């Protein structure tokens, strides 16, 4: 049996998998209190929180000083998306972050939006 300790990732055991169960950091909770999408944008409000949070909460808060997607925060934390959503919903409940839900492109006639995307892409070339 060997334990891999990567520089930046969950501790993995060859046979057992993750050494820390994914829901440990959420205190065993498996559902966030708020509906969050992978593309919801999260930003710290700067308000001091009265609630006690663990180190993962602090790390998550540190990652969203500017508007940052849930997917990106999860990627940096190396935590599953659902666990990240639980941490972020805690921060929302405490007032430490605000969230903007993603734009759902359910209006296919939104020509101006597509044109903005096209212009933005062409500037990358």
């Amino acid at each position, binding site marked *: 049996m060997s334990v891999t300790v990567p520089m930046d990732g969950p501790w993995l055991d060859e046979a057992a998998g993750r050494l820390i169960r*994914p829901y440990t950091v959420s205190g065993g909770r498996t559902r966030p209190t708020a509906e969050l999408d992978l593309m919801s944008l999260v930003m710290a409000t700067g308000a001091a929180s009265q609630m006690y949070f663990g180190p993962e909460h602090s790390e998550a808060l540190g990652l969203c000083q500017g508007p940052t997607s849930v997917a990106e925060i999860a990627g940096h934390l190396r935590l599953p998306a659902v666990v990240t959503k639980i941490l972020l919903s805690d921060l929302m409940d405490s007032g430490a972050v605000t969230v903007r839900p993603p734009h759902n492109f359910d209006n296919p006639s939104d020509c101006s939006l597509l044109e903005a995307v096209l*212009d933005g892409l062409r500037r*990358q070339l």
Partner: protein
Amino acid sequence: MAYDDSSDSFPTPFPTALKVLVAGGFGVGKTTFVGSVSEIAPLSTEELLTQVGAETDDLTGVELKTSTTVAMDFGRITLDERHVLYLFGTPGQERFWFMWDELCRGALGAIVLADTRRLENSFSAVDFFEQRGIGFVVAVNEFDGSFRYDPEEVRAAIDLRPDVPVVICDARIASSGIQTLVTLVQHLLTAVPGGPGQDDAVVQRDDGVPLDGQVSL
């Protein structure tokens, strides 16, 4: 509030987050594509999946419960101060496709990457987007050593509708990936009712004289 919200046109500091999916079979270059166009280092997001054994009434059923993870690559392109585009590489294994419904929600469109050595691996992604009415383009990722096909040959092999663009790309090169995204958005614009593509196709006659709205198809 600490941020400046004086702008009338955009009262919050949040840009509009938009999403494009990058699909295709296993090993077709989705991770490479997302990584090369992204302005951030390639990241992957894990989803935890819980699969419960069929005999859930059995008290011993919990022993059959296993959790597995699916990783999705994602990247980001800041288009301007008000629009951010996120790219999601979809899970390649077909058994995880139920996840696609969530991923597809609100997506602008999709890029289906294809490898000419294994074109059949792209069929299911094409079917998926066709059935859901999600606009997509097929991008043939030209691997070293693969036979070069004409895009029209690829179209025939996949049995694509004539309006779906087929482009050749090199997933390793950022500008090639961006150009593929440009083609996708241009294609999406042609499908917009009253958009520029429709103007060309429907509102103008062959001689360029605009019709006065009495178009019957």
